[in-house]
């Protein structure tokens, strides 16, 4: 497929509507990012999304766009709640993969002497790796249904968290409409012992320090100040979510046939939102998303426990949740497009909601300042906290990037790192890495990722997010 591309300005590129596209594509990229994009088929995927029925506004790609499957990673699209479709390919396998950030009052200098012990304890408390599971928690079927229905709230009620955690989670830690009965027995089985686990690949739990503050007022409102320690957790719905996606891809392939929806890529299979198949997927997806909220909630609780053990209960007392964002999700939101208020099912696949100051869905504590946008980088350099903008709400359905995006394939990275003692190299840089798998670390080295700073430059230039703070890792738990 020949993709036409028209440059709008330094960071915006239009893919004009042609052929079966219902709308234009809009890609946020500078020259460097665009040069990488031309090497794969991510732009074609932006155009493919524009071919799905009921899309409103443009098919969007955030500055960390890269080649995915179905939707590009970094893809955002809104579908009319009445006439549009919902697609598991627009959400991804890891439903509600997302990020939580805990702030603290602990100074870096107080953590440095105990960082080895801290990371060893975190590594034990947060099971990581392929198929990782907890040996201290095996949910009953009833308990699993409660997590699927109520998300993080169920865990807080059990004492696994604080009341103020909930208001600092997107959707307050629970997406409405979840129906645990729509999950297959296989999906449910996979969820019984994986709550509170990191998983593998690019998922992690990091002890970080606030390295630089760019916007003191907003950082203060988020509870972040330079030199203070934070904990960032990146994980999702684990095997349960993957299974839900697998199960419903089959349903959606049949549905696309049934409703006569032409598919430019089978991974974009979908069903009308108002169809039985669409309703079922949304109910199952919400349940998996709630599981992911519960997963990060339990890990946050365990992390606080580790800090209390190693540094004392007073140190852990200030570990408040800054925010918890989804970056693989489809949710109903109200937006204005071409002056028309619409209720849309917004798909964000590797993209973060980034609502501006004044948005009605934000909790009281962030209503005037805007939503914290958590953007993890690679394990050697830095992550960012940004804040949503009014311009972003208008142009990107209130969305921003979700990470740096890979530069190198996993295999290429493994080969390039062969023979190097990466754990020792990180230690020399002041970063303690704990992982059972040297191969995972080899796949996840900073060299394998784009520089998040460059992606953030585009975010800021495009006005789809503002830098608030930069955090650098002190210790990393990798799967």
């Amino acid at each position, binding site marked *: 497929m020949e993709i036409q591309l028209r440059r709008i300005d330094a960071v915006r590129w239009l893919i004009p509507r042609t052929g079966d596209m219902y709308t234009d594509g809009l890609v946020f990229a500078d020259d460097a990012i665009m040069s990488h994009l031309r090497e*794969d088929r991510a732009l074609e995927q932006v155009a493919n999304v524009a071919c799905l029925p009921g899309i409103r506004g443009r098919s969007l790609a955030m500055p960390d766009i*890269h*080649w*995915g*499957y*179905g939707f590009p*990673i970094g893809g955002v699209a809104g579908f009319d709640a009445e006439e549009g479709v919902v697609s598991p*390919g627009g959400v*991804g*396998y*890891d439903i509600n993969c997302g990020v939580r950030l805990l702030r603290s009052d602990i100074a870096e200098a107080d953590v440095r002497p105990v960082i080895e012990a801290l990371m060893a304890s975190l590594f034990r408390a947060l099971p990581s790796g*392929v*198929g990782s599971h907890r040996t201290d928690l095996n949910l009953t079927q009833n308990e699993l249904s409660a997590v699927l229905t109520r998300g993080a709230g169920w865990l807080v009620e059990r004492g696994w968290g604080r009341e103020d955690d909930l208001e600092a989670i997107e959707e307050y830690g629970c997406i409405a409409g979840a129906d645990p009965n729509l999950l297959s027995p*296989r999906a449910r089985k996979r969820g019984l012992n994986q709550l509170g686990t990191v*998983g*593998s*690949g690019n998922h992690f739990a990091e002890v970080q320090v606030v390295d630089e503050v760019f916007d003191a007022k907003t950082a203060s409102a988020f509870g972040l100040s330079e030199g203070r320690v934070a904990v960032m957790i990146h994980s999702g719905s684990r*095997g349960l979510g*993957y299974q839900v*996606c*697998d199960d419903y*891809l*089959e349903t959606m*392939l*049949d549905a696309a046939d049934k409703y006569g929806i032409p598919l430019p*890529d*089978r*991974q974009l*299979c979908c069903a009308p939102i108002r169809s039985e198949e669409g309703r079922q997927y949304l109910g199952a997806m919400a349940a998996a998303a709630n599981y992911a909220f519960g997963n990060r909630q339990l890990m946050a609780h365990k992390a606080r426990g580790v800090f209390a053990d190693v540094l004392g209960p007073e140190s852990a007392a200030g570990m408040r949740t800054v925010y918890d964002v989804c970056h693989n999700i489809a949710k109903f939101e109200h937006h204005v497009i071409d002056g028309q208020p619409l209720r849309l099912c917004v798909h964000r696949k590797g993209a973060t909601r980034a609502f501006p100051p004044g948005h009605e869905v934000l909790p009281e504590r962030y209503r005037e300042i805007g939503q914290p946008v958590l953007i993890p980088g690679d394990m050697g350099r830095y992550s960012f906290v940004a804040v949503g903008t009014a311009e972003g709400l208008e142009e990107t359905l209130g969305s921003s990037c979700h990470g740096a*995006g*890979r*530069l*190198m*394939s*996993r*295999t*290429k990275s493994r080969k390039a790192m062969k023979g190097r003692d990466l754990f020792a190299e990180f230690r020399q840089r002041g970063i303690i890495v704990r992982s059972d*798998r040297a*191969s*995972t670390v080899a796949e996840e080295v900073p060299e394998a990722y784009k520089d998040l700073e460059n992606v953030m430059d585009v975010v800021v230039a495009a006005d789809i997010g503002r830098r608030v703070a930069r955090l650098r890792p002190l210790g990393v738990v990798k*799967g």
Partner: protein
Amino acid sequence: MDAVRELAHTADVGFEIEASSADRLFELAAWGLFDALGASPSDRPSWNETIALGRADLERLLVAWLRELLDIAHAREAVATAASVSLVAETDLRAIVEWRPWTSDGPTREIKGVTYHGLRVAADADGRWHGRVVLDV
């Protein structure tokens, strides 16, 4: 020559297959999958299992086959060490798979899903079969 080759994909992992028949393509796809999973068979006793699947077309059948193998692998903590596949009418599959428990190291990679993205199963004019599979990892 029949072969499985790794596919360059920046974010995920995939493989391309060339085979003399559709049956053989499905067998080689299993090796592509287990190569990506990265688990090694232990020297514990093996066992055979029969897998029977039916789907609307060959592409869906290939995805279903690989998903089934992945499910069994995780449920039994085992890797397939041999597979004999027979396809009927491009919609039904019957296979006998030899399994062996994986070593204590387990898999090196978590495969989230077998995707339909860029999926390909087709024969060329010379009757050679070509396949492409992308895995979400």
